[in-house]
């Protein structure tokens, strides 16, 4: 074990756990939750929570008693939040931050990230299903139905840009659009659909159907309390960031070449901008019904996704070869 090796491993560990890995991610996710809630409150013409609110919520939940419902399958009930949290945090490692060549990337990481982002929904489903309470089970079933609906448009409108960039790696896509920012303009349609799909993934109004408070209390989360609930909330916060980061990397290729500090700032601004757009969207709409949501996804969002793919294919076919290595 030479010094180089030890150093290398320590750096890996730091990268994964502290910066820009888990710890940074959590801190930023909590901050994003604050931005979301505060902006939501301001849009509703009220003051809203103080800046430390998400942190206080998490600490309080962590210090609370934990309860498992009597009928629940204890193992599944406990595993779900853990797996969800781990999967989301992992996905983040593969998304380019403020530079396009990040530490872990490989040809095909796009598929991995999209897959990892599906994991939380599936685990919410399992957690809810094995809570064995009616509300949780309905919430769980709705979550899966919704997953099938938004996943296709989401994939389609990321597929388009990937085809144009001719790669399955998010980093390479980012690099490509950084070089050819004009091409990013072709993907505006995809950006819109992606934002809508992300609302679905994050289960926010108008797609908060799986946890619709007035219908099924809190959906899959109804029976969760204490630490597990804290984890679930954290997962959703992380998902927001990861989703925003994905959108930023694929559709907003600005400021990637800047020096570290400036690049970092631009990166944060981009993410927060995506968060804010999501907040505004959730503030001005009513919740759809699950059948309306599925209709919207299949009849509107999916065709738009296909259109995005076609646009990119045409662009690829007709634009000068030299641009596309």
């Amino acid at each position, binding site marked *: 074990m030479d010094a180089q090796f030890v150093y290398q491993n320590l750096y890996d560990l730091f990268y994964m756990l502290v910066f820009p890995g888990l710890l940074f991610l959590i801190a930023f996710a909590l901050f994003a939750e604050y931005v979301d809630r505060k*902006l939501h*409150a*301001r*849009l*509703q*013409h*009220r*003051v*809203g929570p103080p800046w430390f609110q998400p942190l206080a919520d998490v600490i309080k939940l962590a210090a609370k008693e934990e309860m498992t419902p009597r009928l629940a399958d204890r193992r599944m009930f406990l595993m779900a939040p853990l797996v969800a949290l781990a999967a989301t945090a992992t996905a983040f490692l593969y998304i380019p931050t403020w530079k396009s060549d990040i530490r872990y990337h490989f040809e095909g990481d796009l598929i991995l990230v999209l897959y990892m982002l599906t994991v939380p929904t599936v685990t919410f489903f399992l957690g809810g299903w094995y809570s064995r309470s009616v509300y949780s089970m309905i919430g769980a079933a709705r979550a899966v139905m919704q997953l099938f609906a938004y996943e296709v448009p989401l994939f389609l409108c990321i597929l388009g840009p990937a085809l144009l960039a001719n790669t399955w790696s998010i980093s390479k896509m980012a690099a490509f659009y950084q070089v050819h920012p004009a091409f990013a303009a072709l993907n505006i349609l995809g950006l819109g659909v992606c934002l809508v799909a992300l609302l679905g993934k994050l289960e926010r109004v108008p797609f908060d159907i799986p946890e619709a408070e007035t219908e099924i209390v809190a959906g899959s989360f109804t029976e969760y309390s204490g630490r597990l609930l804290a984890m679930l909330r954290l997962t959703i916060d992380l998902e927001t960031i990861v989703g925003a980061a994905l959108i930023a990397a694929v559709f907003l290729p600005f400021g990637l070449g800047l020096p570290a500090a400036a690049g970092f700032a631009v990166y944060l601004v981009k993410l927060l901008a995506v968060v804010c757009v999501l907040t*505004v*969207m959730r*503030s*001005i*709409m009513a919740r759809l019904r699950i059948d309306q949501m599925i209709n919207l996804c299949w009849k509107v969002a999916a065709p738009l996704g296909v259109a995005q793919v076609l646009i990119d294919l045409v662009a690829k076919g007709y634009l000068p070869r030299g641009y596309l290595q």
Partner: protein
Amino acid sequence: MKRPGRMLAEVLRSALRKPATVLYPFVKILMPEHFRGRLHFIPEKCIGCKLCMRDCPANAIQIIKVADKQFRCEVDLARCIYCAQCVDSCPRKALEASREFELAQLQRKDLFMRESPDPSKVSAPASEQPKTESAKSEPAPANKPANG
């Protein structure tokens, strides 16, 4: 003309304006002039007719004789419904409703108001005391259910 996001403009405008929130409790709120809050008793005016007790819908008020023509008023603030009927019923205006509304307490026993005449003016013969006590422990019959 249907469109999603009809409230967008309004909502964005609100975000730029000062919130509609009053910063209570950091900024005090003053209730309107005739708000019916906590009661106050003016012992000098009371003649002990107990009309207030008779009309109280919540059986919350007690007028207790402490001496000749001297009366104490006790109101269970946890039971009073702040209707001010007693204020209306009183022929001598010995009761008034104030604007106080911050009545929350952590313990039930603190939710109690007792307003007595100035002790220096009370010339209570010692023999009066036990009588007062017995009057106290006897719940007012005003709205006791007949068959309860």
